[in-house]
């Protein structure tokens, strides 16, 4: 326990439970971890799914070697073949274990989000963390569940494996004639690099000013530095708003870039024809 922790555990015990949402049930700490109802759900399905994945990758994968580390890197569980459609296959060769692991993972991720809601409620914090986690959870649901359902077969999901999902991602980009031409991919990447940029600036800024109170360095120095540097200082609350939105938008925009590919747009290169064919150019002789 941290030095100040006992007080907050007592406070958490006094928060009334909300059984309809599974919140505040089984308020138990195991070592430093909080358990709770959603913790039990996450634990059960997380262990089930992970055990199935490791078993398949280490002991069943036809490409396995005698080296477990190598198997971990190159092993995979393939999604069901296209002829299975959206039915639930119960044969291993028809992709049962893919369905099983995706199901377990989805339940675990959801339970993990609810666990964050639970703990935020016990600590009387806002729900920004579960909201942010919900954004990335929506990405998993979009790519592995929603898009395959829209296209009518589970084989559209990605294989569960370290190198295998990289191959899938590479092939996915070229299959729709290059994701570099997908404008939502471009926006997603912009926010991805933007997030790294904001993180770098924020981390560096705080580290540049920390522990210098004795020298009279306060938040004003940071503000003045940013006014000098590019004319605007977003402030200590604003930077965290920017942080949350940059990161969340990155994920939400990449959801869009995935779900549109194969459903609405088949060729991101040809997508840009609208630009050259736009009517306003004709007035200028093009």
């Amino acid at each position: 326990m941290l030095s100040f922790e006992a007080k907050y555990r007592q406070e958490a015990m006094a928060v009334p439970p909300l059984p309809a949402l599974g919140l505040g049930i089984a308020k138990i700490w195991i070592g430093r971890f909080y358990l709770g109802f959603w913790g039990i759900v996450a634990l059960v399905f997380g262990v089930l799914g992970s055990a199935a994945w490791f078993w398949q990758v280490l002991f069943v994968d036809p490409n396995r070697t005698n080296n477990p580390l190598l198997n971990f890197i190159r092993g995979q569980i393939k999604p069901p073949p296209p002829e299975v459609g959206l039915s639930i296959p119960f044969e291993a060769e028809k992709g049962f274990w893919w369905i099983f692991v995706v199901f377990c993972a989805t339940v675990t991720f959801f339970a993990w989000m609810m666990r964050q809601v639970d703990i935020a409620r016990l600590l009387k914090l806002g729900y920004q963390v579960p909201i942010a986690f919900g954004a990335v959870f929506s990405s998993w649901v979009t790519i592995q569940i929603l898009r395959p359902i829209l296209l009518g077969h589970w084989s559209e999901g990605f294989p569960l494996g370290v190198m295998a999902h990289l191959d899938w991602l590479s092939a996915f980009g070229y299959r729709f004639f290059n994701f570099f031409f997908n404008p939502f991919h471009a926006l997603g990447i912009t926010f991805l690099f933007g997030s790294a940029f904001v993180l770098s600036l924020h981390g560096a800024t705080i580290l540049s000013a920390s522990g210098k109170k004795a020298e009279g360095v306060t938040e004003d120095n940071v503000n003045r530095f940013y006014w000098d540097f590019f004319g605007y200082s977003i402030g200590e609350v604003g930077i965290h708003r920017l942080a949350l939105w940059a990161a969340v938008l990155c994920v939400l925009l990449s959801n869009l870039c995935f779900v549109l590919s194969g459903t609405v747009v088949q060729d991101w290169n040809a997508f840009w024809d609208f630009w050259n064919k736009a009517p306003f150019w004709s007035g200028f002789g093009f």
Partner: protein
Amino acid sequence: MATEVYRESFERRANKVIYLRFLEGLADTQVGPIYLGMWGALAFFSYLLCVFITAIGFGEQVGWNPIRFLRELPVLTLYPPAPSYGLQLAPLSEGGYWQLATLFLTLTLVFWTIRIWTRAVANQLRPMVPIAFSAALFLYAAIYIIHPISVNSWNEAPGHGLAAILLWTNHFSVKYGNFYYNPFHMVSIYALLGSTLLLAMHGATILSALRYDAHKEIDEIEKSDEGTHRSQLFWRWIMGFNATAHSIHVWALGFASLVAIAGAIGVITSAPFFEPNWFLWGCRADIVSSIQAACPNP
């Protein structure tokens, strides 16, 4: 003493600022006063030259037709010289414009880094922002300078233009045998996605504890208070580990810098003398998963 002089001049300029009222309640509203200084002026003029040279190159390509310029802007490119020029200077329209524009772009970035450094020191801050910026500068140098010099041809650097930078990324990956198999690229992407995750976690945590003043981070580092305590317990109860008000920013700076540093190493090592084909490297390392048939000795 220099600091005191600086503070005075700040007070003098402070009445020239404007306020963005629409940001009220979301972020700070004051804009300016911005500082110019010698390094700022040098960076500004050098960037102006870069843009000017690029505009001349684009103008020549579209026959000085402004409508054609707008229509073709997304694909207009200042290409680097052909491989036959090697590292020599090329005629203006055959890559010379690119060489000049790149020279002034590089100078701009160097001046800008020095400018941030001087401003940080003038405000009694450690120069951590320019140090972090120099990680990105290293990636820029790897792509535009170190790699082209190491393969003896400016042609392998990206052209200047919107589509050009995307096409270069695509072609560079294919040319060196699929960057998904480049282990430094893997680390860089891991840090890139990890940075976004860390940013979301940190931003959301601080926002969720606003009412306990968790956002006053410089004070919280000196003596942590209720906001930091609640945030720390939140992560400790969830995943058994928590950062502190100080260490989360070390994680932040480290992860974000790793993106650029690992990426730069990935670009520099992609060369005939080190690793000409990362897919074949994957075959040798025996990590190829679904497409082993594509390896020379499956």
